[in-house]
């Protein structure tokens, strides 16, 4: 069977510096797949390449067998890929729930005409979207902010809101860039549960994360990057015993 996300010989240079170099791996549908590595290893750059924010210098990305290397982020979203950001991208000029409703953008079919005259079809759509968004906020654990402005939310809640927005797009694969950064132990534990719940729904999860305990606990497979190159790839057990990884993490 073909992998859901497949990366072959991916290369990205900024000026003369290779942020990502010759990276290849494959993610099967339904997996929780994590990318780890020290700061500056190229993890976020890799995510940016996969989600279409950067165009790679060399190599290709395939989603469901289709070559998506040159596609824009919105075209990838149409194909079922959605993500969150290390530096959160929340629309602070909107309310919390509107941010989540934005996630349903691709599900709306209302025409400009329907919109301008606010015809019943639009109102029906909006009611469904509102309800679904409120449910999702509950699901990720920031339900108490349904009536709030995004700017009034706490850091941890915003991180959850971003996940809710990504889920609202009903993705096949969701990429989470350091979801646990800045969270305390309790919040991290809740996040772990949330990621499990998402994976149990059959959504493939790709994760960039520093929190080793979290990563080792929930990942099916891991990719270890170091200076933009693949250091190791395998199950958590394999990674734990990989001499290169041990050298890089403990010996370094």
């Amino acid at each position, binding site marked *: 069977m073909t992998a859901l996300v497949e990366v072959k010989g991916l290369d990205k240079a*900024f000026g003369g510096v290779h942020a990502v170099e010759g990276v290849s791996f494959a993610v099967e549908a339904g997996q929780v797949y994590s990318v780890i590595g020290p700061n500056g290893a190229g993890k*976020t750059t890799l995510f*940016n390449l996969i989600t279409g*924010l950067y165009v790679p210098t060399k190599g290709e990305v395939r989603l469901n067998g289709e070559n998506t290397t040159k596609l824009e982020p919105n075209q990838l979203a149409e194909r079922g890929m959605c993500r969150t*950001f*290390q*530096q959160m*991208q929340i629309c602070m000029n909107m309310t919390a729930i509107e941010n989540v409703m934005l996630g349903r953008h691709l599900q709306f079919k209302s025409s400009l005409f329907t919109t301008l005259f606010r015809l019943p079809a639009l109102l029906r759509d909006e009611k469904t979207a509102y309800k679904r968004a409120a449910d999702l906020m509950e699901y990720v654990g920031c339900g108490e902010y349904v009536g709030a402005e995004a700017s009034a939310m706490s850091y941890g809640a915003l991180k959850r809101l971003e996940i809710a927005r990504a889920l609202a797009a009903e993705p096949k694969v969701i990429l989470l860039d350091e979801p646990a950064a800045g969270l305390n132990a309790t919040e991290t534990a809740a996040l772990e549960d949330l990621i499990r719940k998402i994976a149990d729904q059959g959504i493939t999860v790709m994760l960039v994360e520093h929190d080793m305990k979290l990563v080792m606990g929930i990942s099916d497979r891991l990719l270890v990057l170091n200076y933009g190159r693949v250091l190791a790839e395998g199950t958590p057990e394999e990674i734990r015993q990989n001499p290169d990884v041990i050298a890089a993490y403990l010996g370094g």
Partner: protein
Amino acid sequence: MLAEFLQYLFTGITIGATYALIALGFTLIYNASHVINFAQGEFLMIGGMATVSLTAMGVPMVLAIVLAIILAGILGIALQRFAIAPAKQADVVTLIIITIGASIFIRGIAQVVWGKEYHVMQNFSSDEPIRVFGAVLNSQSLWVLGVGAVVVVALVLFFTKTLTGKAILATSMNKEAARLVGVRTQMVLMLAFLVSALLGSVAGIVVAPITFTSYDIGIILGLKGFVAAAIGGLGSGVGAVVGGLALGIVEAMAAGYISSDYKDAVAFSMILLVLFFMPRGLFGPKVVERV
């Protein structure tokens, strides 16, 4: 043929040098504060009008010029202190509107003090034009080019050789870092406005004998400076000079060979074309957006 071409070229380079000076003023302020100062043209107006009115009152030309430049400098500092500094949290568009408000205010005062008439300024030296291959070169054009060149060299020296100049550069690159190493950034911002105002007034004075001057001359000159700075790439000194000269020459050629009614349209089409292929102008910095 050649004479005609040379004639347009001379005109273009002269006015282009003026645009370059205005564009440099924009660039300075933009680099220091990321503000596009729509009141930049008013510095030119102040320079020209103050010189004209002072000489009319019997002040010797040289002294009048010095006083006019000082006046513009004070205005530049006042603009930063009283209009830009208090609004530092404001949105980009809001800052644009503030500088527009300032320019209307300055223009209003000029109108009250100097009236609405056009004023003529004497050439600095002989009125006798110079002939080159059949083209006529106004002696004042040489003044514009000479002063322009001196100013550019002075600016380069200022930014590369003096501590103050380096402080301005450092602030434009990274405000926080500059503050950490002891640069007084508020002071630097004020300096940027001051130097920018001085530049503007000098440009306004040298070009006044060619274009005449009036209370509302700043609007269009300021705009042209903005166009020149954008063509060159906002924030680039080289870009400002190249953009200014290019704009001046294209305008003069368009006026000569196409139609003087449409010379501005050609200039504005040029900026659209440049931005179409180079969204950050000719020499604008390439920025990778980080997420």
